[in-house]
């Protein structure tokens, strides 16, 4: 059995990583040998205990992806618990009412599920932004970037499909608004929207459809994509930022690193624990309440809007006039943020290697502008909603 190396230092005598007491405990009691004889895990043990995680100023950002995964696991567990009482279709609202107001700890599980969903999307977005700025999309990691973009879209789809399930007023009208967007796609738009809705209007069949999407189809797709995403990371290794690579080339020395297990794993576990505590705090402090039951005959309440992660496309549609050069304004809006997504997805081709400094700068500014405008428009969208509700 491969023994862990003891305290490892770099040439300046600075300790890079220390042997973890857990590993010592495992070795002293021959636990790993016992497991290896039965499960043949020595290969895995050797891999994780020597897989390098670079140590530099931005190492903290390596945890973002793991955090998104953690929140997804929370979603799976809390989602499974909620599924024990949730009934899609005509009884959707009453089942959520039952969960929130009758079932022991139902409101807590539901609140955790709600906040974990939001934090998962926040983690995914932060992870994506950090990968962008650390240039981890460059060759040979293009497919990690592509699968990551798809995972982000799937996460947003999770948020979208799950939002309707309580079948309250907010959920109903927000879904109705968001589903008006794909209708603008030429030729196939209406068909797509009808397919998603299960008809020409959002109704109780839409709830059942979204439920299947939320608990079966999307998790299946995500599992496959995640497997590819993580598999490629294991195969290609954890990337280093450009300045670290330049330093290595200049000094002809490898940067400091720590083993994935146990050191990086312990850092991840600590972050997961703290994030879990933060999640429970949010669920306890701001529980997810249930609004009035959706009534498809009533007009939309003033100031209705989608969730925060769809506010940017929603506001773009509102900002564009009805007709632009004779073309449908909403169609142009759909085109704009589709183009934004496309450019974002093609960044590995715009900036494939560190050799092309100009391309690197172009990619940097494109991405920064996209991020900045997205944040700005989202804030502007909320200001607009506030003004509408305040009657200003």
């Amino acid at each position, binding site marked *: 059995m491969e023994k862990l190396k003891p305290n490892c230092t770099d040439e300046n005598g600075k300790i890079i990583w220390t042997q973890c007491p857990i590993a010592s405990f495992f070795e002293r009691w021959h636990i790993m040998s016992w497991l290896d004889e039965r499960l043949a895990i020595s290969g895995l043990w050797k891999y994780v205990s020597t897989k390098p995680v670079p140590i530099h100023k931005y190492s*903290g950002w390596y945890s973002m992806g793991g955090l998104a995964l953690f929140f997804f696991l929370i979603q799976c567990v809390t989602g499974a618990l909620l599924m024990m009482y949730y009934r899609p279709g005509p009884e959707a609202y009453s089942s959520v009412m039952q969960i929130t*107001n009758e079932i*022991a700890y139902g409101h807590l599980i539901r609140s955790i599920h709600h906040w974990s969903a939001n934090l998962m999307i926040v983690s995914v977005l932060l992870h994506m932004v950090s990968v962008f700025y650390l240039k981890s999309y460059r060759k040979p990691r293009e497919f990690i970037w592509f699968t990551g973009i798809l995972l982000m879209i799937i996460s947003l789809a999770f948020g979208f499909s799950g939002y309707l399930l309580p079948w309250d007023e907010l959920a109903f009208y927000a879904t109705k608004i968001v589903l008006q967007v794909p209708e603008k796609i030429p030729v196939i738009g209406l068909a797509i929207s009808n397919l998603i809705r299960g008809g020409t209007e959002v109704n109780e069949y839409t709830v059942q459809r979204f439920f299947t999407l939320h608990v079966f189809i999307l998790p299946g797709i995500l599992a496959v994509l995640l497997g590819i995403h993580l598999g490629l990371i294991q195969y290609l290794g954890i990337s280093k930022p450009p300045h670290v690579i330049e330093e290595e080339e200049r000094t002809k020395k490898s940067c400091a690193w*720590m083993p994935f297990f146990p050191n990086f794993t312990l*850092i991840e576990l600590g972050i997961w624990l*703290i994030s879990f505590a933060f999640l*429970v705090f949010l669920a306890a402090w701001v529980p997810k309440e249930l609004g009035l039951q959706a009534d498809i005959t009533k007009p939309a309440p003033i100031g209705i809007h989608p969730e925060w992660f769809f506010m940017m496309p929603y506001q773009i549609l509102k900002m564009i006039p009805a007709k632009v050069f004779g073309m449908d304004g909403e169609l142009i809006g759909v085109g704009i943020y589709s183009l934004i997504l496309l450019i974002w997805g093609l960044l590995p081709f715009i900036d494939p290697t560190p050799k092309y400094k100009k391309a690197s700068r172009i990619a940097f500014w494109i991405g920064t502008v996209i991020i900045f405008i997205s944040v700005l428009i989202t804030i502007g969208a909320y200001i607009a909603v506030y003004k509408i509700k305040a009657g200003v």
Partner: protein
Amino acid sequence: MNYPTLEIPYIGSSWFMGIIATFHIWISHFAVGGGIYLVVTEMIARRDKNQDWIQLLKGQTRFFIILTAALGAISGVGIWFTIGLINPQVTSALIHNFVFAWACEWVFFIIEIAAIIVYYYTWDRLDAKTHIRVGWIYAISAWMSLFIINGILCFMLTPGEWIQTRSFYAAFFNPTYWPLLTFRTLFMLAMAGVWFLAATTHYRVKWAGKINEENIIKMTRWLAAWVFPLWISLPLMMWWFVSKLPFDFNEIFKLGISGIGPGNFSVITRMIIFFLFGCVVLGFGVWLTAYLNAHHFVRWHGIVFLALCLALVGAGEMSRELLRKPYTIGNSGQGNGFLYVSGVRVGEEKEFNDKGYLYKSIWAPEIYQSRNAQFNKAKDKSSNSNNTLAIAVLDKSKTFDLSIEQNNLETSSIVKGITDKSTEIKQVNYGKKYSDLSIGKSVFYGQCMNCHTKVGYRGVYPRLAGRDREGIRNLMLMLWDPIEYEKSIYKRFMPPMVGNEMDFESLVDWLDYNVNKPAETQNLVK
């Protein structure tokens, strides 16, 4: 109601108090636990002759003295200012009982401050033995201040036999005194560990190269070993405290298990869940990162753990305060209530209901008696008499409302008093009852605003939105009518509304007026 009401918009006086008090607890708990930590760690450092640790301790002491002596003192005085403003009745009751205890506490404060100043400035001047003794003087005097204040805080929740005997010692050594003293001592030690963990990560960066990093790692591990068992044991300590409560804690905890609807009072359950969970997370989190992976325990780890620790303080204190509802002194156990949150003493409800809420108010006896007489007279005459609202417009920007019957409008001393060149009286017919909006306002301010705001935290107006006057009246009846109150779901955490019929109808009118603003007054009265 003999004191003016301090109105804090949106957050309310309860949160105003909560923010200042929680801030003080962050500092004061660190002051007690940190003192013990510093002297114990110094003893270890001196025993091992570890000069790097001595250096680190000097840095930690500097951080400690600045934070605790300065901010602790300011926030402590801040609490005095605050409680005098937001709830003078309970402040008066506490001072009358515990002035001697507080005087003792202030003696210990003086010893504390003197000791910590000597401790900090004499690291290199006193011999080790004397310096450690000074440290112990600080630690013991700091703990003694906890010993004293704990009695007063616990008294507010569990006055115990003091209700019957009025004995100082019964009040001080009340049923939850010893459990909470133990709990708080452990909590302070645990909290100090987290504070110093965060500080040590800073010194690790600041003194990189000047101190052997292995010794910093060793201190990080020592702090983690200090913190971990304490945080894990805190939930267990809570069980001792809960077992000493003279009411059924499970009953309160269950209030929030099965729902978060209005009137459920689920916040206490949620805060307790977060507190218990957070303690375990903090303990294991520190063990996993600061103990098992000390080398990679960096500054932001320390800050995040500290933020969680401070949030747990807030959650714990909020839970403790909520357990006391509907009392400020007392609890819901049989015969254990003394003073309601509305400032009314238990047992005085009937007197207020017979004579009126303001009958004892030294600032309004004549006006109040006269209004009572008018109310009874008008009530006898007709049940459909209109109330006339007189609105005095002092200038373009300021208005206030009076409610004066039509007949008395010109002769009323109140109107005469304010009428001058800049005043214009507008008359608007309002409502069907013969009440007084200004009395309704006084009742609202005096009895409701200790816990509620108008439109902010636990805002009353949004909660009543959609109800007409009758709906509002029916809801208020659940708090005013003794029979309805006994059956009401709000009884667990809201005091009964006290006052005679005029007070009640005036309050209903006041609420209806603000929730449903009559059209004629929309642009006139603020």
